[in-house]
């Protein structure tokens, strides 16, 4: 046997490794996926706690805005961004005074600034700009906190969005403190940070043992910072009290892989996601505490829930969770029940109203899910809320390709528009054109249509014989919920199989089919055949 040890070295010499930071982002986003996807879901419960704490402390007036950093207000620039084709809502929020927040960004680049629109209870809308992307939104007294990234700072920063849509960068933490009633907590990069509304100060958390996997933090009405810790095969509730973490094992029964935490008043609710390998089956277990985390019980829930993707708790102690099969209502006492059909996005509350975000529109319920109304998100009050395009499927001409969008809400059909291409282009170029149009987003007038990602999402399209390989960049939790995963599969297959010469569609994430399968929750590399079968690839 000859010496073959030179072969790996020869291969290594020809490599061009991707930036390590790209892998870090993939890994961290994977850890945070199930919480960051909520945006305004679980974390909105902090607003309820903040409101409660304000009563407790007697601080009935909103604090003065911070003066340490410039406030950005550019209504005309914000209006232009919001009305551009490709502008999408990246976060929604509510506060306890009935204000509604929408954060808008353009799909073309995560480096681009964000616009914020705040609609008051009387319908008045204020617009402002943020220098970077706003990844998380946490309601606090006097506005919303957000993690700002791609704004020129290496590790991100924290901004305060005011009721007037002003965006103010807060000074970096200068010390540590223990949580107090009314504080809020937010992840900034990989650091857990406390915010004190009374003084607009940020603090590092003392002696924090960061979990293997992050979950959203909650500051309880009594001033405890609560989060979930996943260590090995155990998920524990952890409370930071007097500078030390006190943990309570919540679930050590099998292999929990992700978890969510929401809270309102003294009610805390969690969902622990279990993933079994190699069978790749998954299930969720709901835990509820009505005494600020001192004791917990497992809530009986319908057997089929699929993935639970967001969680919010009202001041009455009723928790709502969005699941693969609809909205789950978990009362403080009694069993859980499904109260609405399949919906997209996350659930949020201002303590009383329940809202579910669905891209550019949202559904609102004032009676705990019994009835719903649909409204436009702040900033696009001019756009009609319509669903009439759902189910529309035109036949492409020789110089056209079909661009297929998701349809909202509760519509199983898809909707399509036609994009023009040169008549003699190759299948690869035509599929590229269709996917490019998809990731650019639906026409602005189509308030009922949605798509995922941004133009940056599409990395490459290769057609080899009857096989279409679509390589995507799914960073940022684009396919983090089951509804989003379903949408990305539906979009890719619909657009690939409009070309009769395509028999197999293989999706990839940064060149990896395995990574795509992991990102969408399939757990393995799957390809789709024209007959609709998903088979290991």
């Amino acid at each position: 046997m000859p010496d073959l040890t030179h072969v790996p070295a020869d291969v290594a010499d020809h490599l061009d490794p991707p930036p390590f930071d790209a892998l870090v982002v993939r890994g961290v986003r994977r850890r945070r996926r199930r919480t960051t996807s909520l945006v305004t879901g679980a974390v909105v419960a902090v607003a309820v706690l903040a409101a409660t704490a304000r009563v407790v402390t007697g601080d009935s007036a909103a604090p003065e805005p911070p003066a340490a950093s410039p406030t950005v207000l550019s209504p005309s620039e914000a209006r232009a961004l919001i009305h551009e084709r490709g502008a999408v809502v990246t976060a929604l929020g509510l506060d306890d005074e009935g204000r509604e927040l929408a954060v808008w960004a353009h799909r073309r680049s995560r480096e681009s600034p964000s616009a914020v629109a705040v609609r008051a209870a009387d319908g008045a809308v204020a617009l402002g700009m943020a220098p970077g992307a706003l990844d998380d939104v946490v309601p606090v007294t006097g506005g919303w906190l957000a993690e700002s990234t791609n704004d020129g700072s290496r590790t991100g920063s924290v901004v305060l969005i005011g009721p007037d849509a002003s965006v103010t960068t807060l000074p970096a933490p200068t010390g540590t403190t223990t949580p107090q009633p009314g504080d809020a907590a937010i992840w900034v990069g990989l650091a857990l940070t406390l915010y004190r509304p009374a003084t607009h100060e940020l603090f590092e958390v003392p002696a924090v043992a960061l979990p293997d996997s992050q979950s959203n933090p909650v500051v309880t009405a009594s001033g405890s910072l609560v989060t979930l810790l996943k260590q090995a095969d155990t998920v524990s509730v952890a409370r930071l009290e007097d500078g030390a973490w006190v943990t309570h094992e919540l679930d050590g029964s099998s292999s929990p892989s992700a978890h969510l935490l929401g809270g309102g008043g003294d009610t805390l609710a969690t969902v622990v996601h279990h993933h079994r390998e190699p069978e790749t089956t998954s299930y969720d277990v709901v835990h509820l505490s009505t005494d600020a985390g001192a004791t917990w019980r497992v809530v009986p829930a319908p057997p089929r829930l699929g993935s639970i993707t967001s969680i919010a708790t009202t001041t009455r102690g009723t928790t709502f969770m969005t699941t693969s099969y609809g909205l789950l209502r978990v009362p403080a006492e009694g069993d859980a029940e499904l109260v609405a059909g399949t919906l997209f996005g996350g659930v949020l509350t201002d303590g009383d109203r329940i809202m579910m975000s669905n891209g550019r529109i949202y559904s609102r319920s004032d009676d705990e899910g019994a009835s719903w109304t649909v409204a436009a998100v702040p900033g696009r009050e001019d756009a009609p809320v319509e669903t009439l395009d759902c189910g529309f499927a035109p036949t492409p001409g020789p110089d056209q390709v079909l661009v297929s969008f998701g349809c909202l809400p509760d519509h199983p059909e898809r909707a399509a528009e036609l994009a023009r291409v040169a008549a003699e282009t190759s299948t690869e170029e035509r599929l590229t054109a269709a996917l490019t149009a998809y990731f650019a987003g639906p026409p602005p007038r189509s308030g009922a249509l949605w798509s995922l990602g941004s133009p940056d999402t599409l990395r490459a399209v290769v057609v080899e014989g009857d096989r279409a390989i679509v390589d995507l960049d799914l960073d940022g939790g684009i396919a983090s919920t089951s509804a989003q995963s379903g949408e990305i599969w539906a979009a890719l297959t619909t657009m690939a199989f409009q070309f009769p010469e395509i028999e197999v569609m293989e999706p990839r994430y940064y060149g990896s089919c395995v990574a795509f399968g992991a990102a969408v929750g399939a757990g393995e590399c799957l390809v789709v055949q024209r007959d609709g079968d998903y088979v290991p690839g």
Partner: protein
Amino acid sequence: MPEDTQHDALRELYVASYRRLVGQLTAVTGSLAEAEDVVQEAFVRAVASRRTVEGLDNPEAWLRTVAVNLARSRWRRTQRFLHLAPRLVADDTDAGLSPDTTAVLAALRTLSPTQREAVALHHLADLPVREVTDLLGVPVGTVKARLSRGRAALAPLLSDHDPSSDLEDRHA
């Protein structure tokens, strides 16, 4: 705001190990593209399990094990797509590699996956037999049998190589 230094150790590991691992996994999988897939995925999992990985005595061995397991999972799944795999493999391994390396990889692809992983890990990645058995989770005798059969299958295909360089079970 604290600097993001939490991944510095993994970053150093990435710089030190990525090329080596891809080189080894290319031999294991027979495909450069697939090797990059599984090694990148292994690093993504390392980031997601940073504390666990950084606490290991040999994190590169952990990454190699994860990558090999990912590759093995893919082998099992691709059994139903054998008519597609050869074409894709043949396309991606020729780019930029020396003719000698290309020939060795082509020869390795003729082996069964189990023989190939044993041969690749022992004769190309230069791992001792004991480490190969630990990595693959099979008895020493099984690994030696696979090595023996693999060498026999490769012999006629690698006849251009120096026959005097007999490296059978160098580390056994």
